[in-house]
């Protein structure tokens, strides 16, 4: 699985401050860390960045490219800032993160993706907001791919469809819909790639419990063929899972997904936690903040 490091983010206290102060050092250190941690892309999330977006992205891209060789993901809703980032990237072709399936976003951004031969994340967020189920996801996906490949001649391999990760504690049912969508994905969008903002699954639960939710969710996505994920660059275990280094944990989570009976007695504490977490993510038991304790 390809991993996109999410941590260079305007919402972060440390890096947000560095972005505002145009202080390159902490940002470069983070980028170097991400490259060493094996991130395949470094995401540059500058937020909506109203008036300053163009200037900020034009400043940030060379700052990061100076210290790492990995490609960058340009993450902002500011179209002009995306264009500035595309112009500024010299080392690699970047990934546009993201293009929603809304006419005005597609009309503005797909030509840029084509012009700069950039990859892009196609976020399945339509004119009416988040899709309600797998069928609406399918319809949005088909619309996006049809337009991008047909109208703009973009190669399907350049498209990373993002079916939208929701938090387990409020929208568990939408997780199931994403998994159902992934079963149809190869037929709906042949040749296209996929990605997801993984950490959103644990947005809300206590901070110290976020990693295991992210890790189990990744195992499940991996089984459903997810090509890449936008992830926490500090979660080493998560990266190991993505690289297939924990086949036993993966097999255990698959068993839960398949509804097989699991004898908890011989399992290690960690394995038990993976079983319990898989059950809440898959809706076999209802999430609560104390799910690991019961």
């Amino acid at each position, binding site marked *: 699985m390809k991993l996109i490091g999410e941590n260079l983010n305007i919402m972060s206290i440390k890096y947000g401050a560095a972005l505002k102060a145009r202080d390159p050092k902490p940002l470069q250190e983070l980028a170097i860390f991400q490259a060493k941690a094996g991130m395949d892309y470094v995401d540059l999330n500058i937020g909506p960045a109203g008036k300053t977006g163009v200037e900020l992205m034009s400043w940030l891209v060379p700052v990061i490219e100076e210290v790492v060789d990995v490609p960058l993901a340009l993450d902002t809703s500011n179209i002009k800032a995306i264009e500035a980032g595309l112009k500024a990237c010299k080392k690699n072709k970047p990934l546009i993160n993201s293009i929603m399936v809304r006419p005005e976003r597609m009309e503005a951004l797909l030509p840029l993706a084509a012009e700069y031969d950039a990859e892009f994340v196609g976020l399945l967020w339509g004119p009416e907001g988040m899709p309600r189920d797998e069928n609406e996801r399918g319809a949005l996906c088909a619309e996006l791919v049809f337009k991008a490949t047909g109208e703009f001649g973009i190669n399907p391999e350049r498209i990373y469809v993002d079916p939208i990760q929701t938090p387990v*504690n*409020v929208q568990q049912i939408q997780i199931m819909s994403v998994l159902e969508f992934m079963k149809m994905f190869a037929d709906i969008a042949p040749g296209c790639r996929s990605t997801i903002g993984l950490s959103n699954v644990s947005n809300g639960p206590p901070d110290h419990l976020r990693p295991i939710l992210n890790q189990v969710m990744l195992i499940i996505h991996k089984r459903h063929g997810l090509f890449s994920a936008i992830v926490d660059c500090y979660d080493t275990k998560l990266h190991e899972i993505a690289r297939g280094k924990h086949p036993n944990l993966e097999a255990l989570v698959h068993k839960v997904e398949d509804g097989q009976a699991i004898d908890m007695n011989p399992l290690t504490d960690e394995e038990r936690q993976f079983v319990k977490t898989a059950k809440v993510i898959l809706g076999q*038991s*209802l999430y*609560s903040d*104390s799910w690991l304790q*019961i």
Partner: protein
Amino acid sequence: MTFQPSKQVYSGKIREVTLGIGDKAVTIGGKGVFSFHSFEGSIPNPPRIAMEVWDKDPSEDWSAAAKAPFSDVLSDPAAWARKCVDAYGAEIIVVQTKSADPNGDNRAAAEVAATVKKVVDAVDVPVIVWGVANHEKDVDVLKQVAENCSGKRAALCPVEEGDYKQIGAACLGYKQVAVASSPIDVNLAKQLNILLGNLGVSQDDLIIDPTTGGLGYGLEYTYSVMERIVQAALTQEDDKLQQPIIANVANETWKCKESNLSAEDAPELGDPTKRGVLMEAITAVDLLIAGADVVVMRHPEAVKLVKKYIAKMM
């Protein structure tokens, strides 16, 4: 061929919780099927209607329609409670401790608890004491209530994430029933029950209040969450959610605009009494279908309608 309803097999059931003591104690919960699905399994206890009294004269806040049946007792909570039992057949009384509200009368906890005690002593049916959802004040009031009403198996509400340790401890110490209240969210309802369990509150002494939205004001959210709780309890054997559910109906439905507009203000909305009564009765019936085991009601006509409904459905 005769009609065969398709039947669901349930793997869990709701626990029974007993409120009050003696002959008039009331046991709620116990169902092993969705509400009124008696064709699928056992419903040992019918859902109950609790009638509310306020611990202060509500004349300023209430519409004429709501005041009319109680005009002789509104300033005397104990007499009001007796009237609910004697004249309207209330099987449970809820005391709303409105006078304690720090944004209102802000009466001292001792005074509030003394009024509650008078109500508890005036009736032989179980009493549920409902606070004002202000953590600090509810802790003060409900701790004293718990002590004053020792041995009565009263229920204390709302026990929320922000005050469950104190009020939960009072329930434990004086053997009262805790009503765990969460903001229309099934996951938070479960979490609060886990926390109360960790504190030592027995599942025999625990009721869920998922927070009520009235008709037109969020009823569908409460409906969904209640349904989800019951579903988890019955079909997913979710041990932490197998508790009876209470809905504080009247308090929500009678404060909304539609229940209070007079005939002159809103001629197009029809008779104001009938309107308020129906807003209350419909909300109650909906939540009974969703899974409530107790609905808290106000108007005797609405109570009558809902009782009739329950009798027909059981």
